[in-house]
């Protein structure tokens, strides 16, 4: 079971007549320049992994931190799982249920912060 936005009955795709009007917020461009805080190794890895999941995503130009994962990047919970699998592979770590406790993943910045956190946790493990 995934999140609750997967409407079938009555759902409208963008551009269809009757589709919900966009909110006032401008859609962040996927090719926006990265903000400084997304230039870490983890952020680069994340961008690479997302590019594997979303072929039209340009890892050289990740979106702004305020870009929404679902509304702007079309990342649903199934694609989120694909991203997790990619991160596990590339960062050599395993993401557990406990790692997601209390986490909200709404924006690209949320995801970068999450990846930083699990990466730091994985790095700290050998010294524990």
């Amino acid at each position, binding site marked *: 079971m995934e999140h*609750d*936005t997967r409407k079938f009955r009555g759902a409208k*795709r963008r551009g269809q007549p009757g589709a919900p009007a966009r*909110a006032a917020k401008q859609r962040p461009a996927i090719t926006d320049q990265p903000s400084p805080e997304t230039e870490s190794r983890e952020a680069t890895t994340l961008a690479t992994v997302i590019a594997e999941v979303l072929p039209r995503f340009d890892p050289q130009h990740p979106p702004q931190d305020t870009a929404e994962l679902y509304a702007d990047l079309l990342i*649903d919970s*199934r694609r989120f799982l694909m991203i997790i699998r990619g991160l596990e592979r590339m960062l050599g770590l395993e993401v557990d249920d406990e790692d*997601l406790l209390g986490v909200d993943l709404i924006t690209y910045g949320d995801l970068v912060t999450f990846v930083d956190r699990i990466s730091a946790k994985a790095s700290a493990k050998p010294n524990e």
Partner: protein
Amino acid sequence: MNRGDEPPAEDGAGVSTWCNFLFDFPDHYARSTISTNHFAYTQGVNVLPQQPLSLMKQSNDTTRPDIAIPGPVRDLYANYRPTILRRAKTLEQRIGTSARLYYKFEGANVSGSHKLNTALAQAYYYQKAGVKRLITGTGAGQWGTALAYACRRFGLECIVFMVGISYRQKPQRRTIVELFGGEIHESPSTLTRAGREALNKDPSRIGSLAVATGEAIELARQQSDTARFAVGSGENCVLLHQTVIGNEAVKQMAALDDFPDYVVACMGAGSNFAGVGMPFLRAARERGRDVQLVAAEPLACPKMTRGAYLFDINDFSGTTPVTRMYTLGSSYLAPPIHAGGLRYHGTSAFLSSLYASGGFTARSLGQVEALQAGALFAETEGIIPAPESAYAIAAGLQIAADSKTKSGSCILMNVSGHGLFDLAAYEQARRGELPDDTPDERMIEASLASTFGRNAEITEADPPNVSA
């Protein structure tokens, strides 16, 4: 050669892994994940799966043939597993067949059915993921009682929406849920928008699993800080947890020096069917044998034999993922048969893909035939089967009686639960007072037409390769 002449020892039949059938059938997995371009523009959505990551991974893992059962779950399984597998010799003699009939019985636990196998696993994973409360919909009540017990064991709260007709037919189920500290509501209820909408169409509160599920999802969304919706069948991880049945049965049949030509189970959304069947498909391939899986479904809800392979929603509220499945359409309301667990409009996306490619067969049976078979089984084998399980027994008897079945065939039936809360059904059957279970043809046509119509409006999205 033993072949069931001597009672098998259950010692040694214990298993420590679930059979990951997605590893065996990656193509059907991939096909079952095809979804639709149903993105609606929505801001502020948390993409965190509502299920624990571990369950999501299990539902999408094609890389490992077996998945270890966690220690705490194995400890609780040990309270009632291995379950018995016996040759039904008295039944064979009574019907005068040369076929060898075996049954696996999943009713000897506190919930009275196989549902506890996944309830314990899910409660374990949800508790580990920090969830405090599980909310669910249940048909005949086996799943609801199983989840209530599992939640109790793992320190979670539990809320159950139970299909109205079953809620009234089986008040003992309510008592058990409450005994384990759970909260239970008759569905459709007035507690949710989905329930209130359904009540308008169904004022006599017959209900359906699609509605009960919709109510549970709606409430879980409202309480998303602490609560999650838990599902009792259909999803791959649920089917996976049920393979403990088949893994045991493979070992038990081997101990009896026998192997089934047919494995028969009733088909609701598919968990007990897959649970007993998928390990036998693997075992047959490994041993160079043939085995045919047979799904038994009610005439009242013939999704496999009369439904269509279409994209459809899983619940009345329309919030769950759209998957391609064999379905009668989510607006179909099956007649109020006693086998409430088989009234669901659709079935597992994975099993639907397998069925579409001829991976197993299905047959539909009437309620009278099923309950007569159940009564005969009770008389000859000393176990009163759940009405759902009676459909599997009836199908097994049909196969045994089929002149095309080669003499001496071996048939394994999964008796998924006991029928001790269904004595009213057997009483009605004994008196010849069972109500007509003929489906409403116009409703089937309308429901399917509506679903075909919606399918014409949607397009397939790229199948995600989650299993990489």
